[in-house]
């Protein structure tokens, strides 16, 4: 019997091991090890450990949580607008970052918030609104597998979303030859799905399904 087989035997439920493990160990010691045996042991451990009911409750839990998270995500999803820039030859990431910092400075963002009436300025101090806008609503970074730079701005109002993206993108290229705006700001569309939220909801759903199934089994 190999170390791997011994390890896999620990995956079987305790009650099952108490009853059968000595026999199975005896069998494994009596027979020569074959390549598929480890998988065979593992697969059957899973079948014995996770009954159809556990599997169904896990899938059900994941589906319910996933659907709820998707509906909440869609209901709360802001709009987003994009702008793409092509850096000029010789413009490195450092210059681009400096430019972004310069354009997205506190005063510039404060001015945009005030003139476009982006947020409820009575609800939070301006400093917090600027910080929230900078860290959550604006994303600027390189497009994967491309030289281009992507600007994304998110806001619940589609008209304001596109207008602010236009303003920031013009600001980024105004009086600077380091990069060029390709086209203009895209029309505002609902923001893409929050994958982290959906993944977390799915995992939580799986766990809830398993726990609930166990609880129901105990009270049965």
């Amino acid at each position, binding site marked *: 019997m190999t170390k791997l087989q011994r390890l896999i035997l620990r995956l079987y439920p305790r009650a*099952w091991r108490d009853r*059968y493990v*000595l*026999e*199975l*160990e*005896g*069998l*494994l010691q*009596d*027979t020569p090890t*074959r390549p*598929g*045996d480890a998988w*065979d*042991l*593992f*697969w*059957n*451990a899973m*079948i*014995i450990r996770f009954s159809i009911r556990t599997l169904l409750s896990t899938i059900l839990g994941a589906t319910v949580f996933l659907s709820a998270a998707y509906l909440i995500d869609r209901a709360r999803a802001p709009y987003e607008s994009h702008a793409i820039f092509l850096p000029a030859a010789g413009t490195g990431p450092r210059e681009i970052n400096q430019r972004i910092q310069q354009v997205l400075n506190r005063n510039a963002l404060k001015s945009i918030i005030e003139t476009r009436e982006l947020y409820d300025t009575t609800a939070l101090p301006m400093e917090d609104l600027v910080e929230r806008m900078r860290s959550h609503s604006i994303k600027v970074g390189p497009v994967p597998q491309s030289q281009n730079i992507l600007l994304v701005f998110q806001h619940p109002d589609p008209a304001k979303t596109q207008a602010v993206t236009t303003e920031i993108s013009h600001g980024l290229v105004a009086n600077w030859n380091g990069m060029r705006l390709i086209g203009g700001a895209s029309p505002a569309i609902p923001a893409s799905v929050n994958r982290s939220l959906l993944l977390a909801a799915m995992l939580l759903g799986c766990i809830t399904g398993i726990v609930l199934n166990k609880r129901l089994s105990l009270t049965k």
Partner: protein
Amino acid sequence: MSDPSLLVLASLAAADRHGYAIMEDVENFAGVRLGPGTLYGAITRLEERGWIRPLAGEERRRPYRLTAEGRRHLQEQLTGLQAIVRTGLRRLEQG
């Protein structure tokens, strides 16, 4: 036919056997090598259903015996299979 439970029942129809002996017997009469996990998965299910029962013996080589209910179930299954085999062969001959 490669349903592990049926193969185990068919093996025990001839004599009481422990796990290793069942594995060898099945390989001999059906040409199917049951993996250790598959064999004990089948033994677990068959024992739960009352179709086989363990006999007193060495813990590492515990023999199993087919129960009357298990024998009846095996009979039904094999009769069903026999009808399928007969029909299939007849149709092959006709075709």
